[in-house]
């Protein structure tokens, strides 16, 4: 993922978009509408590029085992439980994803619960009595005698992160790492500089569409400009500012790339030693 220390503000983008849309005094479109367009562009670029990442910490929800995800989260990258607090993390453990898992605090529903009595397809305990011989148990590392319900796991439904009952004793804090649609755009410089052209083109094109609809007497003039910005943006293609912004955001940084080459060049990675 690319990195940058150069971030721009909404005002930097507004300055150009209002000029391009021929509306310097906000006589035709409210200022808030432009800011909404910029926020929309920023959000959609983040959805396409997975550039923005977020981290958040929560107290362990011991009663309901459920945490509402942050509003800007659209892709979970990892869930962890730890003891201590965020400034002094003592022990952290990874939480695994479990398909079909659903709980509201007590008990849970899933295809495999460790209690699948007389089920011909899902055996009684997925980890300790999974029908495999001891020879291939290294496919799943576990402690002898452990039960699936001792594993820390989670699932997400309707924007709620649901933790397993075993998480209650694993720590007092939950940490999530996720892809973000970006934080609230405002006066703070939070827009990476390589998004600049794409956001300008996106917002200008949409603003001109607004003007076409609301100033029909000038619609033909605005249409010519709108089509120019649509071409500049080329949102669903590969020849515009949108694709350039997304590909720049997705490009691995040189340090990250060269370090990865070194890791992969060592034979030990395969054995994990």
């Amino acid at each position, binding site marked *: 993922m690319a990195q940058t220390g150069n971030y721009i503000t909404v005002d930097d983008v507004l300055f150009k978009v209002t000029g391009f849309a021929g509306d310097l*005094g906000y*006589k035709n479109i*409210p200022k808030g509408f432009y800011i909404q367009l910029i926020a929309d562009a920023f959000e959609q670029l983040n959805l396409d590029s997975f550039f923005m990442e977020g981290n958040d910490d929560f107290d362990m929800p011991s009663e309901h085992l459920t945490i509402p995800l942050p509003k800007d989260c659209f892709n979970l990258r990892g869930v962890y439980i730890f003891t201590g607090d965020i400034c002094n993390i003592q022990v952290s453990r990874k939480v695994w994803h479990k398909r079909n898992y659903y709980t509201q605090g007590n008990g849970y529903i899933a295809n495999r619960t460790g209690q699948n009595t007389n089920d011909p397809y899902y055996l009684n305990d997925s980890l300790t009595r999974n029908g495999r011989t001891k020879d291939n148990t290294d496919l799943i590392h576990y402690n002898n005698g452990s039960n699936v319900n001792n594993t820390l796991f989670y699932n997400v439904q309707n924007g709620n992160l649901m933790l397993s009952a075993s998480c209650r004793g694993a720590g007092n804090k939950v940490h999530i790492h996720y892809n973000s649609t970006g934080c609230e755009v405002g006066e703070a410089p939070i827009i990476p500089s390589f998004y600049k052209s794409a956001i300008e083109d996106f917002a200008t094109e949409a603003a001109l569409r607004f003007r076409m609809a609301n100033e029909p007497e000038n619609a033909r003039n605005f249409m010519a400009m709108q089509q120019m910005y649509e071409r500049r943006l080329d949102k669903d293609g590969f020849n515009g500012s949108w694709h350039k912004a997304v590909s720049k955001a997705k490009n691995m940084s040189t340090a990250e790339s060269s370090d990865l080459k070194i890791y992969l060049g060592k034979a030990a990675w395969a054995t994990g030693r």
Partner: protein
Amino acid sequence: MADKLSIIVDEIRTTIKQTFDDKVVSRSQVAYWVIIVGNQLLGKHIAKRNSGAFLNVYTVPVITATETKLPSIIKGRKYIELPAAIFDFDKDGGIGYMAYYNNDENCKPEYRIKKIDRTTPSEIEWLELNKRTRPSPETPYFWRAGNVFPIVGIESVPIKEVEVGIYQTISPLEKIDINAPFPFPQELMDTLKRQVTDLARYSFLFKGDKNNDGSDEASDPTTKAVPKIQSVNQQQEQ
């Protein structure tokens, strides 16, 4: 420096030869014609040019209506009234801008102002749909109802006055100072004079009022009125 209205009026009176004692057209009548023609030309001029030459800036108090006075004033609403009549341009373009000083930004220069954008009551419903456009002290709006300009978004903040730049019409005859500079573009002065002169010439076409001198009009065929609408088949009376 623009000419005074009195000079323009007297010049036109001289042109149409209405300076003698028993003149048909009075001085105030010419002044009235100059004002109505001047307003028409000035309005077109301002609408055509992006210029501040005829922008007038005022600070006006924000009034909170304590009672409903129909039409237009509703109890509890904040509004302003303009000190002069303005041109009714498209989208309330007679208002060049409206703004208030933001007290929270005292450290900024005095010209740091918060603009109040123009809207309509029906658009406010649309603006309410988004937190970034919703009327607030950060994004206030005004709309027009006759001579009253309600301001939305500042209901909860104590704003005493707003600054407003307006394109005002030429004052009516009863209010205008005839010896003050006449707010009119110099390059349109000849058009103004020509159009006022045309009005005067047109007025001369009307016959004078008939005097009741006691004579019998029926016996005098020259004074008989001819009906305006007459059938083509009808014989003209000789």
